[in-house]
């Protein structure tokens, strides 16, 4: 698998979420994603960036443009050093929320992408990796 581009952006304020969305859209266009695929990865990025900010107290996102054979993809890795998620299975259920949201961000994002991977350690932080292939 070849990495075409690899960059890291901070997530410290709600303005940064807007920026993450814009960058994800730009990169999805660069990878010639269809409009539906673009919208899906951008929406997932928006959800996870907001999680990083609100639940993880800020962090960063690593964006990678990938190529494997003839297929192209986009991988986003969100990292925070926040409180972590005590019960991952519960957090991935539809409708479960610790904040005021709808409780669909994490589970919904999972359905919007092809690859989804989450690691969390209480007191140390959370890492969420998503990838979408065209």
């Amino acid at each position, binding site marked *: 698998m070849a990495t075409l581009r690899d960059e890291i952006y901070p997530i410290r304020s*709600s303005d940064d979420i*807007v920026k993450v*969305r814009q960058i994800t*859209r730009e990169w999805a266009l660069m990878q010639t994603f269809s*409009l*539906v695929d*673009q*919208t*899906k990865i*951008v*929406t997932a990025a*928006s*959800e996870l960036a*907001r999680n990083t900010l609100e639940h993880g107290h800020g962090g960063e996102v690593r964006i990678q443009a990938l190529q494997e054979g003839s297929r192209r993809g986009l991988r986003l890795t969100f990292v925070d050093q926040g409180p972590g998620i005590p019960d991952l299975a519960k957090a991935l259920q*539809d409708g479960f929320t610790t904040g005021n*949201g*709808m409780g*669909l*961000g994490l*589970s*919904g*994002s999972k*359905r*919007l992408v092809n690859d989804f991977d989450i690691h969390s350690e209480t007191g140390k932080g959370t890492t969420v990796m998503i990838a979408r292939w065209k």
Partner: protein
Amino acid sequence: MEKRTKLAEIVKNQHDVILNDWVEFQLNATTLRRDLMKESELREQSREFLGLFTQAVQSGSDIGETIWKPVKDFLGQITRSRVLLGFTPSETATFIFSLKQPLFDVIRAAVKDPKDLVADLWTTTTLLDKLGLYVMELHQQNREEVIHRQQEELLELSTPVVQLFENILALPLIGTLDSARTQVVMENLLQRIVETGAMISIIDITGVPTVDTLVAQHLLKTVAAARLMGADCIISGIRPQIAQTIVHLGVDLSEVTTKATLADAFMIALQRTGATVTKSAATKTKG
């Protein structure tokens, strides 16, 4: 104390020389904006600043002292005007930093003892650095004020509620729906519902690029609030990619009437309010 008075004395005695050299410097600097500022204006500003500077420096070089207030106020004035004219921070700060060379020149000529010279140059350079940084801070502050004002203007501009027909309102949303804006949107819509007694409001999200769970939640809350006030909402502008994304996210919009285009939503609204649209006979025969 002795060092200070030396700088003060030199500045006082050599006032005209410094002013000429300084203006010369600014006119030759690459950061000069002849397009934005006239030479006479620059000369006038420099003369006035040097006058205030000379006066203040007589009592010391601590710009925190009240004696420096006129100098700082004057710097505030010119910084503000330069920000409005579109100067960059470097271009603004050059006004202060370009004073270094002329001051150094006259000090070097006047002070013979090397130790005194170093001390005097040091006092001068720290003083000008402080003033330069002060200008930078002011520049930044002014820019932030401009940005803040524009944000507020944008907030107002981006949420117009328009009346399409008797009893029908439309709210075309454009851009990012962050919390602050959604609050304004909600207030505007509810206010207009009261004013017009509208039965139906159409919320058009054609201009919203990303609909995630937060945006969906805001929309649902707005719809619920409008319903409490007796107005039904229709959400229009749901494009195919948005529809698919909403389904995958698992957001339930089934309780709200949704339409692909504003035109479709308007037709529904007309039907519900009992109005009908027909083509006139003349158009029919022609068509």
